[in-house]
Structure formats: C-alpha cells, structure tokens
C-alpha cells in the first residue's frame, strides 16, 4: 500500500547524478515527460563551500553499505547526497576505455567481453567530451584511444607535475597533461578553471562540469521535473511481470509514494542500482527484477588504487591545481600481462591538488604521525609534497557481488552488502605498479618516498550488460533482458572496469541509451 499516487509520466529516473541528470536532459529534450527522484536534498551552487570539512555534507547520507572482502571501504566517500549526486564532488578525470578493455575475455580467457566495441562507443565518447567540455593534449597523449580533438587545450603543468616529470623521464615513461572535464578556458558559457584545488568540495564557478551547471539547466529548460527526498525502494511490474509500471519511493518521514511511468530508469550509484533491482523481487521475478540470468549483483568490480607520496627538495605548491590529477601516464596501459602471474592494465594519475585534511589530505598520507612529529611533517608537506595514484584493473568475477543482507537499513529494507576481493594476479599487478611508482619518485629526487595501503576506487558492475540474456542483466543499451521498459544507467553496467576512471564511459553509454529510447519511443511508451 502506498500513501500517495501521482499522475503518470513517460520516464521516471532514480538518481540525479551524472547518469540520471544526463539521461533526464536528453530525454526531456527529445520530448518525453521526465521525472527524476533524488534520495537526498536540493543542492545549490552556494553550498559548494571551499572546505574539506564543509564538503562532507555533499557525501552519501543514505543507508549504510555492509562491506566484506579485501578491496572495499569508504563507500560513502564516493557517493553523493542531493541534487547532482557524486557529480558535485567528482574529480572530472576523463578517460576512454581502451579497445582491448572491451574484449578481455576474448584476448585473455578471463574476465568478460562487452557487447560493444570501442568503435561502437567512439562516436558517443566524442559527443560526450564535447557536451561536458574536456581539456587535454591528445597529441602528447599517444597512448589514449583515438578520438576527436579535445575541445580545449590542457591545463598548465603544475609545479608538482614538473617535479614528478623528472622521475618519469628518468625511468623512460611519458608523463603528459591530463584529460579532464575541467575548462582550461571559457567553454559553453562556463568559466575557466582558476586552479584553486577545491574540486573535491564542489566547483561553484562551473569550470568543472557538474550537474548543477551542465545537465540540470538543460533538463529543467526542457521540462524535466526533479523531486527530492524520494528514496526509491521498489520497481513495480504489471501482472504479466513483463513491463514495469513505475516505482515506489519513501519520503523523509517514511511515507510510501507510487510514481507510475511508462519507462523506468535506475540511474543510481552502482551499489544502489543492483540493490534496487534485487529489492524489486515479485512473484514473476522471485530473485530480483532483471535476474533471469542469476547474475544480478554479480561481477562487481573496482580499481585497486595505490598512492605514492614524497617530499620534494623544491617547493611544489601541492595546494594548487585540480583534485583529479594534473598529469597522466598511460604508457604501458595496453600490456595486461606485464609479468608472469600478474594481470591487468594500470594508469598513473599524477600531481593531485592536496589540502591539509580529509581522506586524501596531507595528514592522512602519514597516518602514523601525531603530535610534534605530525606538525613538523605538515609544515614541510604543505609546500614540498607530491603524490600520484595508480589505478589497476580488477578482473570481473562472479564471486564479487552486491547482495541483500539480513540486516535491515533505516527504512526497514534489507541492507546492501558488497563483497569484493582482488584476484591474486590483479594483486600482483598492483604490487608491480607500487614498485614502479616508488622508483619514479626516487628518480625524481625524493629520498624517502612512501606508498599508501591498497584501497578501492570506483565501483562498477552488478547489472552488467551483455549480448546473451543467459549471462548478463541488460543488453548493450542498458535495457534489462527480462523487462522491456526497464533500463539501467550508470557504471553498474560495466562488464569490465579497465584501469581508468569510469565517468566518460558512463556518459557515452547514457547518450547512446537515450538515443535508443528516443528512436524506439512508440514501442516503449505503448
């Protein structure tokens, strides 16, 4: 039973982050009536206060995630809460998966293949980079896949990058300007970046493409509606179980609402997409909606992240720049078998702007220091610190998964449990990368570099796409095999993660799906 039922809309989208807002804008502009349901509160640019302390309010405040395995942690840090979702505090690193990332199983006999190739997605990547506004230096970055020229030149090389480049040069690797959805100059009515290093707390000037300045103005102009404090708890289906009829959601007081819709699109963070389908079990779908394959929730992946840190002899201005990374090294990315027993690509993201506090701040780079030792370190690090991060590929295996737990969340619903353990050969790949990073730092003149503990970064999979309904949850458009008017948007669709940040691929898939829905409007709205 629900307390409130509303007039039907053509499309209801769960989640107002980058996937949801982009989908909403595209479909509203195509003439659909679109309603987006956002679990968190309304956000405004004025809330993007330049402070790591204040910025925590932008992070997830919904039900807790139960985590198990050796590559999990800090899920709340990665997810957003309110209009724009994680798009308000993302780092805007903008990379394409490489052609081989789409056919890992074919090439290596492990992980999975995608139902699309790089060539299939390339025009959508090109469209997405023009839409978001991407700066970079494609000429220098000869290791990224072929693409249209970036709309903007790269950001200037930071002092951190200049210091690190000596190390990369010395070991024979190329460090080039990063590709970012950050304006290096005015673009599409949005200001150029002033390199203040507060991306992590939100970019109120809109130099970093975020949903409040990019997608939501377009979506609202086209008539899309947005409802806050609406926590979607179930997708309903008709008596045949073959068509979705809408969604149930809970408001702040726990009251139940029903929103009918002709097309339903979960566009939440990876964990919540899978969990929502699992929560939507019914007589026709006893193991969850879209789970005819039995793989709903499975093939969760992440990136195994290791950070390398050091104090340089020269000043590096670590507080200045962009939070994502100023520079990038993809040389060697395509070698997924760099040593016996080691598997996966790796990418170096270098020279991230770093403030004194918070999870990625100066102080937590040295968690063992306290008291006067901490103070001594902070005073030197504030001017001489440098860092870089390596992302390593995780093989997609069914054992790593999102499932419903017996524990209940604050709404009385089964909690989401994520289990993720890094396969052994991926772990060996990560160890190789760590050694490589320390070598680079030493070659750059840092006498005592150090590495942080391996941690997860980015969450993907759980509602994977594929060509065969027996081995995947959706087709290449994110359309569930079992329910024709139910689409999924977001990184939960990724069969494999590659070793690069997922948002460019996520966006390319959203544009492709929106076009598919628009092209099949009559059939889907019947």
């Amino acid at each position, binding site marked *: 039973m629900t307390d409130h039922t509303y007039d039907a809309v053509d499309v209801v989208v769960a989640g107002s982050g980058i996937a949801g807002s982009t989908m909403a804008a595209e479909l509203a502009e195509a003439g659909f009536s679109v309603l987006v349901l956002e679990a968190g509160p309304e956000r405004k640019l004025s809330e993007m206060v330049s402070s790591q302390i204040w910025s925590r309010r932008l992070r997830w405040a919904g039900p807790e995630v139960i985590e198990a395995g050796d590559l999990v942690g800090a899920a709340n840090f990665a997810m957003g809460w309110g209009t724009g979702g994680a798009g308000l505090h993302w780092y805007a690193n903008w990379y394409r998966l490489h052609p081989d990332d789409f056919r890992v199983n074919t090439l290596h006999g492990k992980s999975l293949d995608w139902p699309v190739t790089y060539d299939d997605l390339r025009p959508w990547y090109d469209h997405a980079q023009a839409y978001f506004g991407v700066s970079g230096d494609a000429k220098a970055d000869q290791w990224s896949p072929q693409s249209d020229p970036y709309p903007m030149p790269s950001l200037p090389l930071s002092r951190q990058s200049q210091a690190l480049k000596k190390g990369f040069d010395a070991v024979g690797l190329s460090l080039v300007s990063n590709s970012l959805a950050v304006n290096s100059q005015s673009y599409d009515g949005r200001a150029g970046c002033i390199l203040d290093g507060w991306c992590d707390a939100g970019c109120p000037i809109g130099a970093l493409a975020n949903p409040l300045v990019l997608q939501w103005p377009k979506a609202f102009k086209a008539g899309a509606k947005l409802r806050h404090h609406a926590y979607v708890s179930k997708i309903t289906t008709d008596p045949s179980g073959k068509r979705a009829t809408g969604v149930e959601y809970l408001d702040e007081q726990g009251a139940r609402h029903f929103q009918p819709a002709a097309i339903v699109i979960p566009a939440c963070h990876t964990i919540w997409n899978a969990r929502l389908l699992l929560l939507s079990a019914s007589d026709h779908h006893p193991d969850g909606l879209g789970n005819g394959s039995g793989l709903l929730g499975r093939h969760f992946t992440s990136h195994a992240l290791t950070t390398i840190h050091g104090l340089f002899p020269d000043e590096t201005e670590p*507080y200045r720049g962009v939070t994502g990374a100023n520079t990038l090294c993809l040389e060697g990315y395509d070698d997924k078998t760099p040593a016996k027993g080691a598997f996966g690509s790796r990418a170096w993201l270098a020279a991230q702007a770093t403030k004194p506090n918070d999870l990625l701040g100066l102080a937590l780079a040295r968690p*063992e220091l306290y008291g006067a030792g901490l103070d001594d370190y902070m005073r030197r690090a504030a001017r001489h610190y440098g860092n870089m991060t390596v992302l390593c590929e995780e093989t997609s295996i069914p054992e790593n998964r999102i499932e419903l737990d017996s524990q209940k969340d604050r709404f009385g619903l089964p909690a989401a449990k994520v289990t993720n353990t890094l396969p052994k050969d991926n772990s060996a790949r990560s160890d190789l990368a760590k050694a490589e990073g320390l070598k680079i730092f030493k070659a750059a003149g840092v006498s005592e570099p150090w590495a942080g503990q391996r941690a997860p970064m980015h969450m993907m999979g759980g509602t994977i796409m594929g060509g065969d309904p027996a081995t995947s949850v959706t087709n290449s458009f994110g359309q569930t095999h079992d329910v024709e008017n139910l689409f999924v948007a977001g990184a939960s669709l990724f069969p494999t993660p590659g070793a690069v940040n997922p948002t460019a691929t996520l966006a390319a898939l959203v544009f492709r799906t929106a076009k598919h829905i628009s092209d099949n409007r009559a059939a889907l709205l019947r």
Partner: protein
Amino acid sequence: MKRRRFIANTLRTAALLGAVPRVVVGKSQEGDRPMSLTEPEAETLSKWCDLLAPGAARAGVARFVDQNISGSFSESMLLLRYLDSDAMLPFYRGGIAGIEQESQHRFAMGFARLDMQQSGEIVAAAAQSKTEAWTTPDPNFFYFISRSDAVDMVYGTEAGFAQLDIPYLAHIAPPKPW
C-alpha cells in the same frame, strides 16, 4: 568494515610526544556545555586530540565532535560519516571510555590526571594496536578518526592554512570554520 585498512600496518611511533605542550582544557576553551557528550567525556576527548594534533583543544575539537554527532547525520561534518554511517555517538562515547579504561588499567587513575609521558603511552598503544584493556571500538580506528578530527581543527580551517603559511584560495569561503 575492516577499519584498519586506512592505517599503515607498520605504524611507526615517530611522534615526539615529549615535545608536545600540555594544553589545559576547560569550559573557557571549549565553549558551551556539550549537547551529547558529558563534560568529562568532552574533556577527555579534548586532551586526547590535543596529543594527536597540538592545538586541537584550543580550536574546539570536542565541541566540533559533539555538535556533529548531535545533529542529523546528513548535516554531519565528521570524517566518520565516510566510514561508519550509523551510531556516531556510541562510537565516540565508546572510544572515550576505552581511553579511560586503558588509563585506569595502566596507571590506576583517570586520563585527565595523567602526565605527558603517561598519556602519550596510551596514544602510542592505540596507534600501534597495542592497548591492553581497551578493545572496543577498535582503538586503532578510534585513533584514526579522532586524529582526523584533530587535524580538521588544527590544519583544515582558514586559520590552519594560515598557520601552515599556505594560501586558502577559496571560491566560497566557509561562513565559519565548521
């Protein structure tokens, strides 16, 4: 959640505790009465955090924690919200009780009465997961979280940046430190 993953396995006791100036914490420094913690709990937390990041007590760390565990979770500014969504008050209250328990076990007196050497010994034990009486919440994790709170207060505000002699570069300056 495996809370220790954020802390290096081989913790080094690099801090020079003996050099940390003792800060006496009282109402005049911490402001109004705490909303959720008791006054003794707030004083223990202040002293503890001041050992982790000297200046944290004067900057109001106990009030920072107390206020942010007293309001709605969605408005909380504590780093703990990334890692342990629910039960913030029990977490802090348990950690403070653990400090007192360890203090009684080792020195047969409350933490407030310990000298610099003694209180430093408890900090080192928590940092290295070598507490003898204090078991929950995980002392190492409590060290990690409370250290972050102390760092927020000492280095993470506009005043903290100024103390480090680095520019703040705000787009939108915080209306208040926290």
